[in-house]
């Protein structure tokens, strides 16, 4: 693809016969391992992911890139298909009639990358560690009587009271699924990151070639035995058709696009919507939506400090905000965003848009102004945190600030890098003393699709998610949801939760948007799923 004039490299070398260069070259020959060459042989897929992989422990963090990494090298007991239905993956499962005993039986042929067979003890240790970290897992362990390996293949999970959503939580696709690790690794305290990266998944982690934040290489695990069923989302057979998958990071979106167009890479997980015309112009590139659910973007207020400790003022703020402007600014092309007032995400079983009329109608500044007056807003500044270094989060605060100002709020928009923001949002101090009033973030829709896993839907005060609403009614509704044993009841409770969340302005859903992936046209058969996975995918010649 690239044109290099004849003799070019030779003449440059001849000129630079300097000791320094020679030394640098010689030294690099000796020390640098494989480097990050984007080799173009047919057996390797080079993919640019949405962010660099740095944290290798998929249990300790909720970061998507680490979860994706987890799906590469680890396997899960049970997994969901595109209809949110749970299927066996590593294990068949059985539920006792009283709903108190769950039995998982590992299938044959499971093997860790170090050649050891996967045992029930490994699974128990992994589930225990996951249970300490994952909020859904914590709910299960709250009612767990015992979790033990009955024999090498059988895991018995006994509950003290029925917990209907157990399988949904264990089989969830995001944010932290219970990946199965060898017991010796899973014994690492859940507050410390693991240091050994051995799984039983379809790919092995090539540790020598790992460059944190830059590049990670996976090799096909030859001894992996896929299931017979066709792959669907995370369920079904994970048949690997390529030898190696290399994830690299390109901090500059245009660089990545250009690299894809010129064939230097095979796959781009997320492309800037505004730049799609460049990709679409290239005949060798296919642009598509992999995950039809996409992301929800939202705002969260701080219940602890004025002015948003007042429900009326929160309601005024919600009334001031309109989704269209936020999404149009963030995404641009309306094909790739949709207005959605459902806190559990549109397109999910529990979706309901109750109460979101003003949000979807572009906001009601007049109504907000009136409400604000009624609430006796005293012009207390609203500290709105804006991250400067995360492109998917820069637009929401800016647009929201303008909308709030139009409704009469006194907005103090404070710019900061994402790290400062995540630290500061954990601060319960008054906004003037380093606290905050409102911030924005995005979720993958499956991560918020149910009251069990949606982090915001939690009214436990200081133990709740940042913003710390103290809301007994919400907790009661959640208990009701857990207790519900059929889908209709669940949907009914979920709708009441939706109404309650909007009423109390627990958080402000600002709509949904899709991410667009792009691939060279010779990359085929990729699974449609929120998680980009590299089984089944093939590279045709």
């Amino acid at each position, binding site marked *: 693809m690239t044109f290099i004039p004849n003799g070019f490299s030779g003449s440059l070398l001849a000129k630079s016969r300097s000791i320094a260069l020679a030394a640098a070259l010689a030294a690099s020959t000796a020390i640098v391992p494989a480097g990050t060459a984007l080799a173009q042989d047919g057996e390797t897929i080079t993919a640019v992911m949405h962010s660099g992989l740095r944290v290798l422990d998929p249990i300790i963090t909720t970061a998507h890139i680490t979860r994706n990494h987890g799906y590469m090298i680890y396997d899960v007991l049970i997994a969901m298909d595109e209809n949110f239905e749970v299927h066996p993956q590593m294990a068949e499962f059985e539920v006792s009639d009283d709903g108190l005993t769950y039995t998982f039986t590992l299938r044959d042929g499971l093997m860790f990358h170090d050649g050891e067979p996967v045992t029930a003890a490994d699974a128990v240790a992994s589930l225990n560690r996951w249970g300490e970290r994952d909020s859904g897992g914590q709910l299960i362990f709250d009612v767990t009587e015992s979790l033990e390996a009955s024999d090498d293949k059988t895991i018995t999970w006994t509950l003290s009271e029925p917990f209907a959503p157990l399988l949904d939580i264990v089989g969830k696709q995001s944010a932290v699924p219970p990946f199965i690790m060898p017991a010796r690794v899973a014994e690492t305290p859940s507050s410390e990151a693991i240091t050994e990266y051995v799984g039983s998944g379809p790919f092995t982690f090539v540790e020598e070639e790992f460059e944190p934040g830059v590049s990670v290489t996976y090799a096909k695990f030859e001894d992996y035995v896929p299931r017979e069923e066709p792959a669907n989302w995370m369920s079904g057979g994970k048949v690997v058709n390529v030898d190696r998958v290399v994830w690299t990071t390109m901090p500059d979106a245009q660089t990545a696009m250009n690299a894809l167009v010129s064939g230097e890479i095979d796959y781009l997980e997320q492309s800037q919507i505004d*730049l799609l015309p*460049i990709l679409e112009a290239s005949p060798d590139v296919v642009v598509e939506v992999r995950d039809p659910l996409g992301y929800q973007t939202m705002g969260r207020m701080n219940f602890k400090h004025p002015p948003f400790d007042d429900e009326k003022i929160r309601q005024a703020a919600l009334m001031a905000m309109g989704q269209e402007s936020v999404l149009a600014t963030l995404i641009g092309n309306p094909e790739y965003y949709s207005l959605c007032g459902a806190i559990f995400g549109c397109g999910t079983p529990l979706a309901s848009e109750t109460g979101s009329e003003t949000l979807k109608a572009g906001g009601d500044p007049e109504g907000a102004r009136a409400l604000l007056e009624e609430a006796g807003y005293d012009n207390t500044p609203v500290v709105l945190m804006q991250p*400067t270094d995360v492109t998917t989060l820069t637009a929401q605060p800016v647009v929201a600030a303008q909308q709030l100002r139009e409704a009469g709020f006194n907005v103090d928009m404070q*710019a900061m890098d994402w790290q*400062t923001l995540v630290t500061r949002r954990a601060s319960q101090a008054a906004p003037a003393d380093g606290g905050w009033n409102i911030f924005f973030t995005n979720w993958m829709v499956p991560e918020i699709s149910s009251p069990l896993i949606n982090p915001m839907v939690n009214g436990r005060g200081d133990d709740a998610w940042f913003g710390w609403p103290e809301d007994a009614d919400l907790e009661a509704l959640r208990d009701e949801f857990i207790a519900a044993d059929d889908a209709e009841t669940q949907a009914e409770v979920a709708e009441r939760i939706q109404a309650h969340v909007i009423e109390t302005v627990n958080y402000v859903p600002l709509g949904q948007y899709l991410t667009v992936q792009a691939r060279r046209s010779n990359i085929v058969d990729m699974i449609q799923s929120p998680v980009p996975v590299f089984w089944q995918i093939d590279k045709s010649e």
Partner: protein
Amino acid sequence: MAAHPQPTSAMQVVLGAIQLPRNWRLGFGPILAAIVLVLIVIATASAYLYVPHNPMSMDALQRLKGPSETYWLGTDPYGRDLFSRVMVGGQVSLLIGIGAAIVSVIIGLLIGLVSGFFRLADAIIMRIMDALMAIPSILLAIALVALNGPSIWSVIFAITIPEIPRVVRLVRSVVLSAREEPYVEAAIALGSSMPKILWKHLMPNTLAPLIVQGTYICASAILTEAILSFLGAGVSTEIPTWGNIMAEGRLFFQIKPELIFWPGLMLSLCILSINLLGDTARDLLDPRLKKREA
């Protein structure tokens, strides 16, 4: 009295009674640079009087539009008017440049004077300055912005800190060489106190090189601001600067190069002019080069 009495301007007093080379004449370049710079300063300073749109007001439906009668240079990714932003953005960029230049020159001058004259302080100060110099300035600046949050003043501060050691070294070297001047020794012999000598005899010697240095700092501060924005450590997007307009625009470089082109053009013209004027000032003020022209 053979010497011709020459008019003495106030500027001459400040800059050390410069004697212009006999045939010295402002070249075409510096004059053009001065005109460009004055135009840019006037145009940006008065921007609010004439820009057609509020540079902060967004219209999501007008994102990334091309030039039109309403939006002379088109709009940015937030649907804000690029022309208004570029003109208003100049204010902040220039403020950062001038602010960084003034602050670092003043602080550097004070530290440098002390360092140049008091040996004990010198040893300590220079070690600290060496350490500051050794830290790559852009990394230091990013860390400082992270520390203070990305406000205008924090950016000025972050740019200033790494510049200070260079100013200190300059002032110190001028002081060290000036204190060997016979007129300084004469002042010692005349019983003048050290602070007086420092301030009245030595300090004025530093002004000319500081003015030159200040212009360079100003230029480089405007550039550094752009780089900080590029790396995500710049002024918030609410306040337009040439740097953050470009930093936001860089994502759209291939589909809408104007977003980088216009602020980049203004910034480069501005820096080019400042640098050219700085060079002119240096050629005039630098005694070593002056010797050549005489």
